[in-house]
């Protein structure tokens, strides 16, 4: 049996970043995930690369971490980040005193926050509420969490890491003195000298199996996906962080969120957005961007923040990085938990966790993850003669798109809303080991557009069934549409109910 230096449990953004860091420092690394990579909270958030401005007033340290990481990711993950910039707008009911406190705190944290004329803000973002009384420009950006996780996992593998997906950790292997020396799954065991829990909210349940108690508080955040881009910048409300006060341009859609509510642990695996949440999100969002009231909503979804309890409500809990050395804290050697934090600071979380792993293993290796560009972000030249509708796929995968074969039918457009081509699908099947259309979606964007797969899903399923022997196209369609349907239910009206009806009629046997 292969003896790993480190086993990382959880294939979200933190786990993938940690696997990359460990592998780059020469550790024999295993990343294990019960589902596909980026299936949990990492794939269910705003896609916002914080500048730190949102935290500047209440959490200066978090703000400083964010702006540092923001700058790093723009550099090392250029194909995952869109440097769109952000605005913090003040509505007539907001206080401009807060704006001046906010800009002072931003500057203290090293965030380039500039007060601009509301007129200038309306020029930058014509859809913004024309009644705004103030606006501050900050270096917020939009980031694709799926791509960022992919890029980290690809690099981890490139540096020798193993990734095992679709296999849940059911318990831990301990030696005679109670040291964690591996993880158990239903099928087999894996041995490793250090185990890192990077499983978000699910770390609490896993830790319990190792005899360790982590007080965590699942905080549900619901979001709405609007059909197209309403603003080319991230729009935030310049006030104390609250619900539904961020609108992010993510690729061809806009995402509005979030809410923040404590939920029981049982709900974490099957979160549904309620009608009340949708109404609340809309009512607040419309204040910032009035046209949200009349823009088609494609779906609603929710993620769960892994907050570590300090008492109080979910908004006031620390969003900071939590690194737990269970040897020191609980007397369980071999086990580390890295949780809390944010998508923006995942690389830093990984660095801190890997530093601790290295210390425990007595390895002296420096972190280089901030300097070395991720796969996809290397400089590259576009090949000549590639039909223009491949541009979206090339943009998504950056320099890695060189591995796609756009010739010989590779340019065939499969998902027309999100411009996913056969070449991109073939590449993703090879590079990421997808099992079905739900997995494929995370690596491409297939079915994430206007029709939510109603139109293209058959074509995609046929191609996937061809590439994955033993799968049935019909089953792939059924499985995928069920998942899409779940997100459409909370927003079933207007064009979305027409779309759902079209989906139902086209796929009468599958839905």
């Amino acid at each position, binding site marked *: 049996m292969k003896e790993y230096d480190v086993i990382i449990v959880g294939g979200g953004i933190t786990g993938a970043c940690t696997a990359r860091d460990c592998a780059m420092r020469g550790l024999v690394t295993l990343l294990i995930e019960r589902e596909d990579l980026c299936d949990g909270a990492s794939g269910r958030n705003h896609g916002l690369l914080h500048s730190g401005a949102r935290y500047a007033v209440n959490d200066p340290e978090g703000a400083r971490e964010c702006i540092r990481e923001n700058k790093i990711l723009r550099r090392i993950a250029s194909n995952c980040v869109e440097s769109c910039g952000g605005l913090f707008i003040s509505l007539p009911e907001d206080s401009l005193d807060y704006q001046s406190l906010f800009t002072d705190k931003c500057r203290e944290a090293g965030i380039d926050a500039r007060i601009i004329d509301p007129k200038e803000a309306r020029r930058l973002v014509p859809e913004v509420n024309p009644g705004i009384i103030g606006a501050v420009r900050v270096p917020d950006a939009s980031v694709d969490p799926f791509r960022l996780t992919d890029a980290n996992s690809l690099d981890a593998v490139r540096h020798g890491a193993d990734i095992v997906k679709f296999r849940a950790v059911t318990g831990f292997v301990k030696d005679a003195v109670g040291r964690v020396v591996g993880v158990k799954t239903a099928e087999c065991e894996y041995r490793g000298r250090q185990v890192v829990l990077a499983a978000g909210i699910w770390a609490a349940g896993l830790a319990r199996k190792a005899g360790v108690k982590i007080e965590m508080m699942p905080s549900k955040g619901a979001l709405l996906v609007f*059909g*197209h*881009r309403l603003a080319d910048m991230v729009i935030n409300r310049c006030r104390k962080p609250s619900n539904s006060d961020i609108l992010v*341009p993510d*690729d*061809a*859609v806009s995402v509005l969120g979030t809410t923040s509510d404590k939920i029981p642990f049982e709900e974490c695996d099957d979160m549904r957005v309620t*009608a009340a949440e*949708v*109404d609340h999100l*809309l009512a607040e969002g419309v204040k910032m961007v009035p046209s949200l*009231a*009349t*823009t*088609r*909503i494609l779906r609603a979804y929710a993620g769960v923040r892994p907050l570590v309890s300090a008492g109080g409500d979910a908004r006031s809990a620390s969003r900071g990085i939590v690194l737990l050395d269970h040897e020191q804290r609980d007397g369980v050697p071999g086990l580390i938990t890295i949780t809390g934090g944010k998508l923006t600071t995942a690389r830093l979380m990984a660095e801190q966790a890997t530093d601790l792993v290295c210390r425990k293993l007595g390895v002296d290796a420096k972190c280089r993850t901030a300097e070395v560009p991720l796969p996809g972000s290397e400089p590259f030249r576009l090949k000549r003669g590639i039909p*223009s*509708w491949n*541009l*979206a796929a090339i943009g998504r995968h950056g320099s890695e798109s060189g591995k796609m074969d756009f010739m010989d039918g590779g340019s065939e*457009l499969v998902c*027309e*809303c999100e*411009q996913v081509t056969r070449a991109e699908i073939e590449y993703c099947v090879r590079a990421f080991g997808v099992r079905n259309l739900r997995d494929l979606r995370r690596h491409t964007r297939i079915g994430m*557009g*206007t*029709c939510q797969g*109603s*139109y*293209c899903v058959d074509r995609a399923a046929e191609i996937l069934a061809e590439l994955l022997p033993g799968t049935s196209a019909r089953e792939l369609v059924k499985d995928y549409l069920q998942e899409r349907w779940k997100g459409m239910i909370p927003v079933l*009206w*207007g*064009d979305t109910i*027409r*779309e759902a009806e*079209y989906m139902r009629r086209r796929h009468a046997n599958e839905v």
Partner: protein
Amino acid sequence: MQESSTSRLNFEACLKCSICNTVCPMMAVNGSYPGPKKAGPDQERYRLKDPAFYDYALKYCLNCKRCEVACPSGVKVADLIQTARLKYAPRSSHPVRDAMLASTDLIGSLASPFAPIVNGVLPLKPVKAVLDGAFGISSKRTFPKYSREKFVTWFRKEAAPAQEAFGRYVSYFHGCYGNYNYPQLGKDFVKVVNAAGYGVHLLWKERCCGVALMANNMGKQAARNAAVNIGSFTKALDKDEAVLTSSSSCTFTLREEYKEVLGMETAAYKDKLMLACKWLYEKIEAGEVHLRFDPGFRMDLAYHSACHMQKLGWQDYTIRLLRMIPGVSLTVLDQNCCGIAGTFGFKKEYYPYAQAIGERLFEDIKAAAPQAVVTECETCKWQIEMSTGVPVMNPISVLAAAIMP
């Protein structure tokens, strides 16, 4: 919950059903054209993200609007493509040619005084070779002839005095073709409208409607023309009952494109600007107008509904009007695009597509073998006459020939 959803040109109402693709004439003959769904609502989402997603293949769109007619969700598919072209299209590879073809009134006013020379020289092989080689105008194309006397010159001299006696009036938007190339159409119009008991006024100022300017990405010039025309319509409607037209593409541009593509206000005149056939049919139906037809008139005709006529949805007015003429035997042709799409079919690089698209219509016309094809569109006329040899008439000219002298 939301009360309603709206988006520019209704693009988010697209369900991706792709019915539009099934009626697109260009998609059927050209594999490089992404088709209306992709070119319109699909790519619009990505163009909003980054203009780099503008697809050069949008140049193939004929702007025939068949996609819009077919769309069950009311998406302005072709307008999305038109506005994207105006906003993002790169500079034309043939800017001089495009400007020449698009500036129909400028070229018309230059050519008209020298009409015999222009008409004599244009069909010559060496001239065509130069136009083809240097400008990219297909040498296979037959050019419309220019008239030495413009319609407006004739009208002011010959017809204007007699109009004053009528007491009720309509204004006439004659269009560039009616003015510079084929003034007989305007003469026929005056004859028919006078026979209906109305006098004809010219507009205070008339500019080219701009359909060709828009198709050639000259949106600013089109907007300038539109402003002049809109001013003239408003002025005319103070005293005249309606502004009548004889060309379907001009009519459609003035009524629809000014608003949807150029973003101008059309409400003040839209309901009172229409093709003369619709106006006549409605007047006759209401019993306000009686036309007396020559019992000896006989003609075997086939009606072709131009793409923009279909977009207007008015082909039935013309068909019913023609059927009122006792001596007319009328075949209604299947609705197929002729392929020329205004200036599109004149361009060397598009000529083969234009002819391939028109093939089905040409076959139908040859099979029907009428004495003449009737259509409201002048560019359909050029294409059909060149490709089938069958003469093409505007319905107004048929009426003029059929009414009692």
